[in-house]
Every structure is written in structure tokens, then in C-alpha cells.
């Protein structure tokens, strides 16, 4: 099961908070997190890696990146 999280337009600390809440509270093993700026991308990536997850980034549009995050 993949959990989908759209953080576009949200500012700190909400993108990381939404991801970490999903990481703790859902059964999902994989997460697709949409980010629309570099800061959110860096912060969510750093948080995921701190929790032992593997992150791959896919460019979705001009500003939007989809971070595919897999729990180890």
C-alpha cells in the first residue's frame, strides 16, 4: 500500500509533519510525497533518511517533484 501526500503550497514545518505523521500512523510501506520547492524537498528527504527510509525523486512538472519513499 502506498500513502499519497500532497504538500504543494504548504510551508515549514507542515510537509515534514504530514510525512512523519503518515509514517507513524499508517500501515503503508511506501509513500509518494509531492513537493513544490527545494526546501520542502530537502526537509522531507532528510526526515525520511533519518528514519531509515530510501528516497528517490521524480520530476513531475516545472516545480513539482514526487518523492518516492520506501520504508526499510
Amino acid at each position, binding site marked *: 500500500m502506498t500513502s499519497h501526500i500532497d504538500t504543494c503550497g504548504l510551508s515549514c514545518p507542515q510537509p515534514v*509533519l504530514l510525512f512523519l505523521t503518515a509514517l507513524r500512523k499508517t500501515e503503508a510501506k511506501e509513500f509518494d510525497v509531492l513537493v513544490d*520547492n527545494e526546501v520542502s524537498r*530537502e526537509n522531507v528527504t532528510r526526515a525520511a533518511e533519518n528514519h531509515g527510509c530510501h528516497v528517490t525523486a521524480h520530476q513531475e512538472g516545472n*516545480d513539482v517533484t514526487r518523492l518516492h519513499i520506501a520504508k526499510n
Partner: protein
Amino acid sequence: MKSLRNIFVSPAGIILTGAIIGLLAILLQHYGNPGNMGICVVCFNRDIAGGIGLHRASVVQYLRPEIMGMLLGAFVAALFFGDFRARGGSSPITRFLLGVIASIGALVFLGCPWRAILRLAGGDGNALFGFAGIFVGVGIGTLFFRQGFSLGRNTTQHRASGFVMPLIMLALVLLYLLYPPIAGQEKNGVLFYSLKGPGAAHAPFLLSIGIGLLVGFLAQRSRFCTMGAIRDVILFRHWHLALGLAAMLLAALVANVALGSFKPGFEGQPIAHTQSLWNFLGMVTAGLAFALAGGCPGRQIFMAGEGDNDAAVFILGLIVGAALSHNFDMASSPAGIAANGAVAAIGGLVICLLIGITNIRRGA
């Protein structure tokens, strides 16, 4: 570009940024900026408000080039590295109000978080109460975020809107150059200048703006934020930004000791008062306002340089709030809090709590 970007967002990058800001702030003090006020984002916006005549407190009027430099430095870095994106529309009027309250609270303490660090690094024990206040204020903010607090999503705006704040800063630089300070004159052209007090203490223009540009550039790249440092530790146990804050404190402390300007104590500290309760409560109010707005005043400057319209509105709130602080007798002085300082700090806190409660959204 990518590798350079990674260097700045690494732990080494944020530590380097914090240390450089700490050192440069003490350098600015050494070359003329007020005591323990190498860079203070709230005080300097207050001085700008005085410089353009929004308040007439004669001791705090000066168009601080550091602020213009910081925003323009961040603007250049954001353009160069592809981070510039005009965005906005996330509760702008609420953010304006948060800026006003942040300024009022910080001026009860007499400093933004950057100055709290510099005051501590100079040995001012009163700053400990300010710091405790920031921790509590930001801590209350994290409770709201845990409950689903959000000022809503921003959307992409027309690119031109992102240039407005940098152009306002450029206009201020041009005004300064057109009407520079003249010894013994309290006005040149349209600009007001202090002849005594903190507003009369300033480093040379080129040093101020040069350091501002460098600080803005580095902080934009590394995402340096003092409020974020504390928030991330409380909310996530993430220490990344806190490394920057610690590096700034340590570097400023070492520089002060080396220059003989470290003077530990509570009494007679530069531009500070000893009313601990109000040093604390002023910063609880300001800390909560920073947390709800998503960044310390410095970070808001850098985000405004990246094209963030909402951060720009917060900065305008800071400037207006600083003017109101002085016009309405709310801003403290070394003698202590002002007649309306206590009401302002408590009233601001109540408004922030109301903003927090009324913006809790589920599933936003």
C-alpha cells in the same frame, strides 16, 4: 550547481553559515553597530521605520543597509540557483498581523532571536529570559501544528510579484545613497537620522551592505532559521538547523572574548533592561508569532528574497509593528518596559493564541 547546493544544506553548510553570521555580526559591532546588535532583524526594521518617518523616536532612525543587503543577497542566490519562485496567497492579512505582533513582542524584550544570540554571546544574562521565552512561544506553536494548524496553501503568483520586495529594498538603497547621513543633521532630504542613541551607531555603509549581501546569500542557500532550529528540535527531534544556531552563538562568543567585548552580567548591558518577566513574556509572544508564520524574521527576509509574497507581507508587518511600538509607547528602553509594554505583550499573545485556535484545519 547541484554539488554546491548539497554543500550548503549539509550539516557542514549550516554550521559554516551560522559561524560566519556570528563572526560578521561581531565585526559590524566592532566597526560601529550598537552593542550586542551587530545584526538584529527587528531592531533594524524598526530603525528603517524611523528612517522613513513612520515613527519619530529620535534615537532609532537609520536606514539599515544590512536589511537591504540580506534580502537582495537572498534574491540573487535564489535567482542564480533556481530557487526563485513567486508564490503567495496563504492568509496574507493574518501574516501581516503576525509580523506586527512579532515586532511588538520582540521590542518588549529588545531584540529578535538573532539579537538574543548576540546578547548572550556578549554576556548579557537578561537574554537567557528572552531565550526561555522563545522556547516557550515556539513550543506553544508546535502544539498548534500538531493539532493541524495551517495558514493554508500558497499558490504560484505572477513572476513580477516576486520582484516587488527586492525592488523596494533597491529603492531604499538608492534613497540612502541620494540622502546619506550628514554629521550633525537629523534629516537629509526625506530621510531621518539619529544624532544619538542606537540609531546613530552604525558601521560604514559599504561594510553594512556587503555583509548583508553575503549573509543573505549564505542563509538563502543553507535555509538558516533560528525559530526553525528550536521548532524542529521540539517537534521532530531534528538538530540540523540547531547546529547553525549553536555555531552562530559559539562564533560570536569566541569573537567577543577575542576582542575583549564579552562582559558577563545583568546590569548595564547595552540596549537591554533587567525586567526578567517581561524579557520572557515579550519573547513568548514573539516566538509564537514567528512559529505560526513559519520563520524567524531573518528567514522571512530570505524567503521574501526568494519571491515569497507572504513572507514579504510579514516583513511589512514587522516594520509597521515597530512603528506602532514606538508611537504607542509599547517599546522598551534600557530604563525598562514602556507604559503600554505589558498590555502589548499580553494582548499580542492572546491574539496569537486566537490565530492559532481559529486556523486549525483537519486534512488540509
